[in-house]
């Protein structure tokens, strides 16, 4: 690997980490859409900042542009508070206005300014290594590496310092306020960090793809864990993995790096959505099917339990008595037999001792609805794990 290659991957990985951390809290606060709004509305801030500083990596530009991001949030909340429109409508009203102001500013000054809308929206990671940070004659590496590195450092420091506060304000704003941990302060803190991150990252991956790096890793992690700390770790890992593998995919396909990274993120999310062990679509469908079968099984056992007469328990009559289709009756009967819950003698089904005990326990559970009644049964039956 050449040194620009390493530098590009390093920048991509750092951008991914810096985005994933605020992303977790945006997703948990159901504010994913606000990151989209911020990513657009920082455009006028970037343009004005660029007029002032003439340098896309200047800290002043980043702060000016991030301020536009926070202003977006304030405006959205102001419109929402009037009670005349809902939040999504307010977001849809605010950011196109700010974004178009940015577009007009660029168009009016296109001749003097080396800045175009495409560059802001899509970024170009491949060019990042060309813009060096020079101290005297010494080359300290790409500027964007330093910019994003600093933003990541600040983000991690704030996360460590305010983890407890972020958690409680995200979970229960009412309680936080009572405890004296202001939800408003944490809200604007998170919005500021998100804005700064988006501005810092737009140069590398583009303002739009920043949204993918913020939301997709967190959404993927959310499907895999029920622990906040793990969710943060997983998000960061998914972000970095997508950044590196996206880079190589772009290399292989000769395509846009940031496009490939976002696509990788999408593919990882899709795979997780389908195959996640607990919350994944396939696992959910499988569990529902199992539960259906087991409900049928209990219905069947209860039927056997209630009816002494052989005619009710004849194997060929089960179907009409419990009103099932043949396939279902067969599946349920097999399941009951496999678990030694029933025995079949002369085509007449009867409960075994185990079956009787099981039926009684199930009944007790159905009547009492107490979890502890079925603890031992959870091992064998999906139904009782729900």
């Amino acid at each position: 690997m050449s040194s620009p290659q390493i530098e590009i991957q390093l920048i991509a990985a750092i951008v991914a980490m810096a985005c994933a951390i605020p992303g977790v809290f945006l997703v948990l606060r159901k504010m994913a859409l606000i990151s989209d709004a911020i990513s657009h509305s920082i455009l006028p801030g970037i343009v004005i900042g660029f007029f002032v500083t003439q340098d896309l990596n200047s800290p002043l530009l980043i702060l000016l542009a991030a301020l536009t991001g926070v202003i977006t949030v304030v405006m959205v909340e102001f419109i929402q508070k009037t009670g005349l429109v809902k939040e999504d409508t307010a977001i849809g009203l605010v950011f196109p206005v700010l974004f178009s102001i940015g577009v007009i500013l660029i168009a009016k000054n296109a001749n003097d300014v080396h800045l175009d809308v495409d560059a802001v929206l899509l970024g170009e990671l491949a060019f990042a290594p060309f813009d060096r940070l020079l101290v005297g004659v010494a080359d300290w590496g790409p500027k964007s590496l330093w910019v994003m590195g600093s933003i990541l450092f600040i983000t991690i420091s704030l996360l460590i310092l305010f983890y407890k506060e972020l958690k409680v304000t995200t979970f229960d704003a009412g309680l936080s306020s009572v405890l004296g941990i202001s939800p408003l302060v944490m809200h604007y803190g998170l919005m500021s960090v998100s804005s700064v991150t988006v501005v810092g990252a737009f140069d590398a991956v583009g303002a739009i793809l920043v949204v993918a790096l913020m939301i997709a890793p967190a959404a993927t992690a959310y499907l895999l864990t029920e622990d906040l700390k793990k969710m943060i770790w997983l998000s960061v890992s998914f972000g970095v993995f997508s950044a590196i593998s996206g880079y190589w995919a772009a290399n292989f396909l000769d395509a846009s790096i940031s496009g490939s990274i976002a696509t990788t993120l999408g593919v990882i999310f899709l795979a997780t959505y389908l195959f996640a062990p607990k919350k994944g679509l396939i696992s959910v469908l499988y569990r529902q099917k199992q539960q259906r079968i087991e409900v049928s099984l209990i219905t069947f056992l209860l039927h056997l339990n209630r009816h002494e007469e052989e005619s009710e328990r004849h194997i060929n009559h089960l179907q009409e008595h419990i009103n099932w289709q043949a396939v279902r009756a067969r599946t349920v009967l097999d399941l009951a037999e496999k678990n030694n819950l029933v025995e079949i003698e002369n085509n007449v089904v009867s409960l075994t001792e185990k079956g009787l005990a099981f039926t009684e326990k199930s009944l007790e559970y159905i009547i009492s609805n107490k979890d502890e009644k079925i603890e031992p049964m959870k091992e064998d039956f999906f139904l009782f794990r729900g």
Partner: protein
Amino acid sequence: MDTQKLAVQIDDLTVAYNYKPVLWDIDLSVPEGVLMAIVGPNGAGKSTLIKTILGIIKPIAGTVSIYGKPYSKQRKLVAYVPQKGSVDWDFPTTALDVVMMGTYGKLGWIKRTGQKEKKIALESMEKVGMLTYKNRQISQLSGGQQQRVFLARALAQDASIYFMDEPFQGVDATTEIAIINILKELRKAGKTVIVVHHDLQTVPEYFDWVTFLNVKKIATGPVKDIFNDDNLTKTYGINYKVAVNK
């Protein structure tokens, strides 16, 4: 009454949403050590009253004091149980962690929870009978268990005044009895407990103090003196027959 300390005192309180008053000129004094129900029809402002006392909602007029001082100075004396439905129970955390949140107030900003906070949280969970579920994901808890976790969290706040917003909503009879027993124990220990309550039938059995609210304060005082048809009718607007003395 004059010699008894006031846990909460509210003067001329008015709260409005978009300039429409939801609480209108409320004066209310709650003596220390009572177990009080706030009752009133839907939209009467019961939750709003609690949230305003706790500073979550800003009033447009009036003052609230807790033991004679504004709420912001008395935070550590107050615990709060919000409505169960006000939070997202799919949030990735465990029951114990939620209870630990009760200790954050005394801990203050930035400082981390340690063994001491964990011990407080575990003791609180034991009091509400939830110790066995301490590592359970909160999404896996039943409605009654979630309510108990919230109650444990309030106990972990170790306060003098407890505010609870409909703690009996959506819980079964066993949990309801368990909760009311804990509230009665809190009162016995000299704490003040203020509960937004919906079930008028249980007021005389559970509470010793009651406030009737319907945008304005209708009445407040000991259950045995003021929980009668007259006040119920004034509050609910219809001739509300509750067999108080049966």
